[in-house]
């Protein structure tokens, strides 16, 4: 049983032939013979299945009653003989992405750039507690350490081999970026082992797992967010960013800033700020329903991203707090 009858039915195979009062229909290698008490009348109906008449026109065309026409069409459709002469409704994916980008830009300006974290870093970088800089690097590392959770989920992106190839390249380019940033913590006396045994802020987990969920269940939306996370199309090729500028202003030790700078430079060299555009340029189309879903999730993504920065400020601007959050048990408390 096919879906609703085609809007503008058209015979899928070559035109039917009539021989010895029997109608021959051909589909692929198979030939079907239809016997009908009035083959000429049926041939007239089959001849009208040229994709220019809709079902209502066919029903009232005169040769058969409306119900008979529907029955004949249903039988033809169930046997695979009908096609529909209509065009799908969808927009070029890049057109949609550029509008989604606009939504994300607005959210970024309204929600992310207005956080205390970014306000303080851009306006008073020398007054920002040094732990906030370290905390940002730590949470950034936690994000990179878990990046495989979302990047790997789109490696098998279905339906378009070019998008899949680009995502595989992106994965390779991002692979082990956490190790680059890891070097920044050595001057702070934090070993790689310390980092791996520490845990991120809940707001970082929230961002990471939301992305991982989207990558698995709504990959097109995930693809739209990649460029925001990578600094956006405005990101220069030389790899400067507002955080690194603030680090420089604040006079932070180059041993700490250097690895972060190296990471930014590598990302910029790959042009990752434009990845979303490049992917959507290759993706053929986005439907109206998908577009609505993508738009609907932009503000949630922006909130998660805002919280990521907000919480870095809230946690590490209290300088008494230890740099690393761990899950280690206090062995001394275990008693018999």
């Amino acid at each position, binding site marked *: *049983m*096919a*879906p*609703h009858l*085609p*809007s503008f039915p058209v015979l*899928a195979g070559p035109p039917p032939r009539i021989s010895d009062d029997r109608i021959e229909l051909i*589909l*692929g*290698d*198979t030939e079907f013979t239809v016997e009908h008490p009035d083959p000429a009348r049926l041939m007239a109906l089959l001849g009208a299945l040229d994709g220019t008449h809709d079902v209502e026109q066919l029903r009232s065309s005169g040769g058969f009653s409306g119900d008979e026409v529907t029955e004949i069409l249903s039988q033809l*459709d169930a*046997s*695979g003989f*009908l*096609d*529909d002469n*209509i*065009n*799908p*409704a*969808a*927009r*070029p*994916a*890049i*057109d949609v992405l*550029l*509008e989604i*980008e*606009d939504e994300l*830009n*607005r959210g970024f*300006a309204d929600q992310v750039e207005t956080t205390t974290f970014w306000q303080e870093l851009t306006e008073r970088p020398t007054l920002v507690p040094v732990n906030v800089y370290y905390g940002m690097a730590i949470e950034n590392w936690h994000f990179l350490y878990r990046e495989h959770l979302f990047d790997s989920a789109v490696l*098998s992106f*279905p*339906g*378009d*081999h070019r998008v899949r190839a680009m995502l595989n390249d992106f994965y390779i380019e991002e692979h082990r970026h956490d190790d680059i940033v890891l070097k920044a913590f050595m001057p702070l006396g934090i070993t790689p082992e310390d980092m791996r045994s520490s845990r991120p802020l809940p707001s970082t987990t929230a961002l990471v797992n939301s992305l991982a969920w989207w990558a*698995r*269940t*709504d990959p097109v*939306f995930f693809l739209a967010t990649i460029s925001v996370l990578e600094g956006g*199309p*405005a990101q220069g*090729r030389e790899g400067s960013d507002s955080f690194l500028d603030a680090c420089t202003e604040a006079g932070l030790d180059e041993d700490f800033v250097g690895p972060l700078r190296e990471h930014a430079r590598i990302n910029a060299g790959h*042009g990752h700020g*434009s990845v979303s*555009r*490049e992917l959507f*340029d290759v993706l*053929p*189309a986005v*439907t*109206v*329903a998908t577009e609505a*879903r993508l738009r609907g999730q932009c503000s949630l993504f922006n909130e998660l991203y805002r919280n990521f920065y907000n919480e870095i400020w809230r946690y590490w601007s209290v300088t008494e707090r230890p740099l690393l959050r761990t899950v280690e048990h206090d062995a001394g408390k275990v008693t018999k």
Partner: protein
Amino acid sequence: MTASLPRRPVFRPGVALHMEPREVDLTYRGGGCLIELDEATADQARDLLSALRLGGSTREELKSQYRDLEVETILGQLDAQGLLTDSPGAAPSGFTGGQAYRRARRRYLTTMAKAGEFYPRQLSERLFQGTAAQTELIGYAIEYYHVVAHCPRVLAPALAQADDHKSMMMLREFYQSEMNHDRMLIRSLSTLGIDPVKSALLPLPSTFAMMSSLGVLAATFPLGLKAALFVLEEPQPEFNESFVKNCKRLDLPDAFIAPIAQHSDVNEGESHDDISADLFDRIEYVSPEEMQEIEKAVSDMAEQLAAAGQEITDWYGAERRLRLRTP
């Protein structure tokens, strides 16, 4: 490296331009930028900005038209401020869901018509001829058990996929309707002293391939899953009737036959074969490459089904005793 996107840049709707002799003020959503014009190129710059209001020209066309300007640099700066988008592109070619479903169905019919040549020893033929052995009938019930026992696991990933509300509900209902069908088959097999829960049994490779294919499609290619479902849900009344007749001919107990016959009736009664059609009816667009992949998935599933028809005969019908596939 020169940016290639947007290909035919145009100002976003809402970008306001205020042109002065030596500067242009661009505002957008409370932000924007001020461009100072060089006296020698001021006219060209104003023309370029006017052209970007209209859109339609490619970056190359703009560059050749405004040779005195650093067009790429200007476009880069405007883009960095979020002021540019692309002129609307042509409607993408592809298929509606209905068109895609009909193609998939034709592919299924033509694949099935040929699959018999490749897998000639079909259980169905032996059922229709009334020559199936008892071990083959029991083997069929065991493989049927594997199919329904795997169903929740392989379908579950599809429930997580983002989709429109109605499609998600349709998949959810389908999932629920498939739940616990393994109990019917367990009941059936228990009448012969076979308990696949207590003593685990392995499925035939083709049975496992069908279920793993469904699972992979559910997790990675929801369109492919939606299309492949009808292959397994297609009503087979002739097959089912012959199965019952053969069971009776070989004196298999009614308690063995009844749950299997009942399950077949359940599937046909609930017209499960409509699930693909109903889901595709809600799909607005399928790209040409997705169409190709859907047709591959459907024909592959059809061939796995044909392979299973032969493997059941080859494995379970090879000896007089029942060869249980214990690990």
